[in-house]
């Protein structure tokens, strides 16, 4: 009886000791199963030519409580924005008197798997388009509505809603179309370029130091399969370009404009870096 009480205590102290000693906390070993029904893979073999052997979802770098939020579609605060996005989808806007639904019908059918293929080459514009740019093009061209202001609440909501219809679909950028390869090249260059007073590149944190802590933040590999993501620190849904601008601001450099060529190139490259993972939108991150 005495042994039974002593052993668990000893293990407990040992475990705490180990955790306290390590400033490096690698991603946990855990499985993401949404609502106890739908398993979402969070690790995958990296594609050919990738700097890592394995791509790891940002979900695995979060605390137990944060991970639990994403695993419950009721509690996931990002789902509030999916609901809002559904409202926007069905709202008529613009001189043409149409809503997204007028042409695209039920998003659960028409948008299934669509978001996972972005960013994709847009021949007419001569550059890659992400979902936001595509939505704006539809608004302007088909609805005769104003394009959204960058990071407006409705833009983020409708993009989250559309991307969420691809939940579980593999992330993939088609580099063979148009000039995508040259945008990937430029994005790769930018990824490794140091910026700002702090002289940090994306790679400084996400490639060289993932798994370590920068102050109180647990650095992930910087994969983008969960965007737009609900960030607890913002208590709001955050778009990819919103986050990229935030990262650059954190190096104390001038922030590039949303949807600028610079950020589009970076989006092409970092989406490629996430190849192997699946769409988790809306992910929950710190």
């Amino acid at each position, binding site marked *: 009886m005495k042994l039974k009480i002593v052993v668990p205590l000893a293990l407990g102290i040992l475990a705490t000791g180990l955790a306290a000693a390590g400033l490096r906390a690698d991603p946990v070993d855990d499985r993401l199963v949404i609502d106890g029904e739908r398993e979402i893979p969070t690790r995958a073999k990296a594609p050919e030519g990738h700097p890592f052997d394995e791509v790891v979802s940002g979900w695995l770098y979060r605390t137990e409580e944060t991970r639990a939020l994403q695993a419950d579609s009721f*509690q996931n605060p990002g789902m*509030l924005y999916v609901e809002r996005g559904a409202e926007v989808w069905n709202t008529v806007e613009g001189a043409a008197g149409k809503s997204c639904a007028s042409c695209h019908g039920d998003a659960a059918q028409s948008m299934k798997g669509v978001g996972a293929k972005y960013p994709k080459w847009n021949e007419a514009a001569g550059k890659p388009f992400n979902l936001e740019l595509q939505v704006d093009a539809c608004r302007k061209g088909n609805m005769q509505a104003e394009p959204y202001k960058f990071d407006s609440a409705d833009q983020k909501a409708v993009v989250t809603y559309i991307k969420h219809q691809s939940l579980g679909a593999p992330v993939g950028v088609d580099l063979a179309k148009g000039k995508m390869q040259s945008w990937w090249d430029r994005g790769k260059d930018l990824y490794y370029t140091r910026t700002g007073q702090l002289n940090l590149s994306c790679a400084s944190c996400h490639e060289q130091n993932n798994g370590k802590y920068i102050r109180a933040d647990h650095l992930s590999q910087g994969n983008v399969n969960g965007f737009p993501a609900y960030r607890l620190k913002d208590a709001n849904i955050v778009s990819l370009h919103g986050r990229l601008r935030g990262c650059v601001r954190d190096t104390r450099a001038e922030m590039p404009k949303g949807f600028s060529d610079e950020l589009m190139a970076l989006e092409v490259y970092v989406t490629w870096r996430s190849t192997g993972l699946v769409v988790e939108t809306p992910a929950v991150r710190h």
Partner: protein
Amino acid sequence: MATPKPRVKVPAKAAKGEVVTIKTLISHEMESGQRKDKDGKTIPRQIINKFTCTFNGQPVFWCDMAPAISANPYLEFTAKVMESGTFTFTWLDDNGSVYTAENKIAVE
């Protein structure tokens, strides 16, 4: 922000005397009144300040909320159900608005 929307999760069925878990979430910015906008002016407080839950008219759980509660407040609590009926949930906003939701439960 769009009109705050409540979401509630109540089991559809339960046994008599069973303790059920009720989950509630409402989209609301819960502006604390401590933040300043980019011109330096204080953004006025606007929060949900009270939440109530009743079952067939009887109070089950209620609480006052203060500015420290973060956006999109999530409240989870338990209730012992002895009969079938309806849970009614209300959220009171500082500006006087009341948001409500109702969920039925069948108890055998």
